[in-house]
Structure formats: structure tokens, C-alpha cells
């Protein structure tokens, strides 16, 4: 690499370490065109393990105000976690409509073709944050990961706000006569949970509402 290009790399390193938030492109354009790829490779190597600068409050506030950061942090705190935002982004990157993704998903899950509209409706609700990710079956997430070309762990991680939030605490502790008091209700509840769903309930509902 020419001495001038080595100096540009060094300038970037100094600016980064000083917390001046240097821009890769602004440095690359200073290098001769034929050396930009090599310089980019070195910048990439540096950035991969560069120590994070000791940003001040103003820098941190500016970073938090970046639309990408603000959007991601807002999504992380929303119902459904990051999964709605990430799913929408991955789908759009592949230029797929929700209906088209649903159609592929139905095929991947081995469902009947006529289940595609209902699947699309669930995907739409998922992207709008109206579905609890914990209720989505692993089969659906695996198929989506395959179709969208991302590791399953990333989709699972994005859909785990419950993994971050407070765990549900027990609502009550059983007193001595608890069995007599609630036993009949628990039996009724158990029967209800074990009973087949209504006429409208099908495998698609189970896949999106039945949990892992």
C-alpha cells in the first residue's frame, strides 16, 4: 500500500480512537481508486476489533437519535420484540409480498395451498406486532429462517421479548383447602383446553398460536 494510503488508514484509526466518529467513505475517496479495495479491507480489519471509543454524552445522544438506532431500540421494546420489524425487512429485501411469502411458507410447511390466505393473515398480524412470538411454533420459525436465508437463532432471538422482560410470578400460593375450592374449576379448564378447537380452528392456527 502506498505511503499516502497508509497515512489515510492511520488518520482513520486516530479519529476513531479519539471518538470523532470518522466516516469510511470520506477516507476511501482520499485514496487512489486502485488502492481503495485494499484500504477498505484494512479498515474492515481494524473496525472488526477496534476498541470502542469513550463516547461522551453528546455523542451517545447523537447516536441514539440516529433513525436506525431509534427505530431498532423502539422495536426492541415493542410488543412482539424485534421480530415484526426484522421479518418485514427480510421479506421486503427479497421483494416478497406477504401473500407471496405465505405461499412459500405453506409449501415449506407441507400445508394445503388453500391455507395460504390464512397464513398471510397471520404473517401480516405478526409484522404488525399483533401476535405473541412465543406462541409461534418452531416449525414456522424454522421454515421462515430457511425461506428468508437467516440463521434460526436470529429469528428466535428477535422474537424473545419474554426472554428479556420480567418472568411471570406465581399469582397465588395454595392454601390448605385450595384443592376443594378450585378443583372443579381446574377440571373444567382442563377439559376446555383439551377439547378440539371450533370449526374454524385448523393447523395454521396451531402453528401460529400453539406455541413451541
Amino acid at each position: 500500500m502506498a505511503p499516502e494510503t497508509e497515512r489515510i488508514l492511520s488518520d482513520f484509526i486516530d479519529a476513531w480512537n479519539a471518538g470523532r466518529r470518522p466516516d469510511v467513505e470520506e477516507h476511501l475517496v482520499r485514496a487512489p481508486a486502485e488502492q481503495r479495495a485494499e484500504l477498505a479491507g484494512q479498515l474492515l480489519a481494524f473496525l472488526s476489533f477496534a476498541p470502542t471509543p469513550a463516547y461522551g454524552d453528546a455523542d451517545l445522544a447523537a447516536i441514539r437519535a440516529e433513525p436506525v438506532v431509534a427505530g431498532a431500540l423502539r422495536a426492541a421494546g415493542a410488543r412482539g420484540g424485534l421480530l415484526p420489524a426484522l421479518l418485514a425487512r427480510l421479506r421486503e429485501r427479497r421483494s416478497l409480498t406477504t401473500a407471496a411469502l405465505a405461499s412459500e411458507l405453506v409449501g415449506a410447511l407441507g400445508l394445503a395451498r388453500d391455507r395460504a390466505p390464512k397464513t398471510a393473515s397471520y404473517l401480516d398480524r405478526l409484522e404488525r406486532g399483533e401476535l405473541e412470538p412465543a406462541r409461534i411454533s418452531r416449525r414456522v420459525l424454522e421454515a421462515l429462517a430457511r425461506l428468508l436465508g437467516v440463521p434460526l437463532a436470529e429469528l428466535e432471538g428477535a422474537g424473545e421479548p419474554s426472554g428479556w422482560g420480567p418472568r411471570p410470578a406465581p399469582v397465588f400460593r395454595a392454601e390448605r383447602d385450595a384443592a376443594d375450592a378450585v378443583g372443579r374449576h381446574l377440571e373444567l379448564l382442563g377439559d376446555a383446553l383439551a377439547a378440539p378447537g371450533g370449526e374454524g380452528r385448523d393447523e395454521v392456527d396451531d402453528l401460529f398460536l400453539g406455541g413451541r
Partner: protein
Amino acid sequence: MAAAPDDVLLWRYADARDGGELELAAQLWEQLAVNNFDRVQQIVKAFRFSPGGPGLPEHEWGSAASEAYLRVVAMGAGFREREVGRFYAALVTCVQNACRDFGRRELRHERRVAGSVDATFEPGAEAGPYDAALAAYDAELRERAGDAVRAERGRLAAEQLVAWAIAQVANESYREVLELTWIEKLTGEQIAARLGISHDNVYARRSRGLKQLERILRGTRD
């Protein structure tokens, strides 16, 4: 007031997560993500121009950066490491996966290019570019006595993956400049003054030392 350093945040995050303080863990991960936004964004930009990255179209870099950042934030729920070098390695893997996904079609033409940064990022592959170095580093740690490892964990700055890799750089003059850059965070001018060498000499040693460091971290040392 300056931001807490990544290594401190990561340890506090791991302690909170392991102790069941999940809301605190989420807040700490959020701070880590904020601290590392510039790293994500600039890696995406560098990737676009680097030998393996021309597949990322110019008009897509912003979308790629947004997606990469979302994926980094999402990574928190499953991240189980305590060492900042491993965090950076996971972050780079995540960001380059996102970049690769954006330029997948075009990158097919580039995959056989030697030294290509996406060389280990075949679709669906779990491996990252620094896995070999991480494995070698693990092996070295395992060789030490448990107590010694625990004692040295307190000296995070000296025991991070990068510090370990810098110590592997064969050329002493390159190693010296890398240590002053990474560990002491001196500027090029300060390094020149400290070592009594010219600025151009510092620039050259930094550049060449960085190349050796990258080869070590990628496990491709000659």
C-alpha cells in the same frame, strides 16, 4: 460523562442475565448496541468497497446497515459470552451475514477470490471469520490452571482476544505499534514521538501490523 466501556458493559450484562435480572440485562445490551452503532455502520461501508464486498449495491448500503443493526440488537437474547473480543467477533459475523445476504447474487461471482472477506460466509453457514483464532485462544486458556484463568480475567484489557492476537505478531516493531494503538490508544503522532520514528514509519508499521493481525485472527497465519 463517558460511556461505560464495552468490556464492563458485557460483564455486567452477563452477570445480570445469569442472575435473572433480565430487564437490567436488556438495558445493558441496549447500551452495548448504542456503543457499537458506528462500528456496524462503518463495517457495512467498508464491506461494500473491500475485496469480497462489491456485491452490496450502492443504493442498498443504508438498508443493509439498518438490517445489520436490527440483527445485532436481536443477538442479545441469545448471546452467552463474557469477553468483548468474542462480542466483536459475533457482531462482525452478524453484520457480514447481513451484507452477504444483500449482495448474495453478485457475490457468487466473487466467492473464489482469495482473501475475500465473505469467504467463510456461505449461505446457512454458522462459521465466522474468526472461529479459528477463537478456538486457538480457547485452547491456550484451557492449558492454564483454573485459578490462573480466574485471576487473569480481572485484567480484561490485557487478556482480550485482540491483545492475545497482537502478542502473536512476529515482527517486533509492528507488534509495538499495534500495542500502542490498541492498548494505549496513542495517536500516530504520539507513537512517533514515543518511539522516536517518523510519522511515515508509524503509518507503515500500523498498516503492515494490521495485515498480520488480521491473518492471525482469521487463523491463516503463514
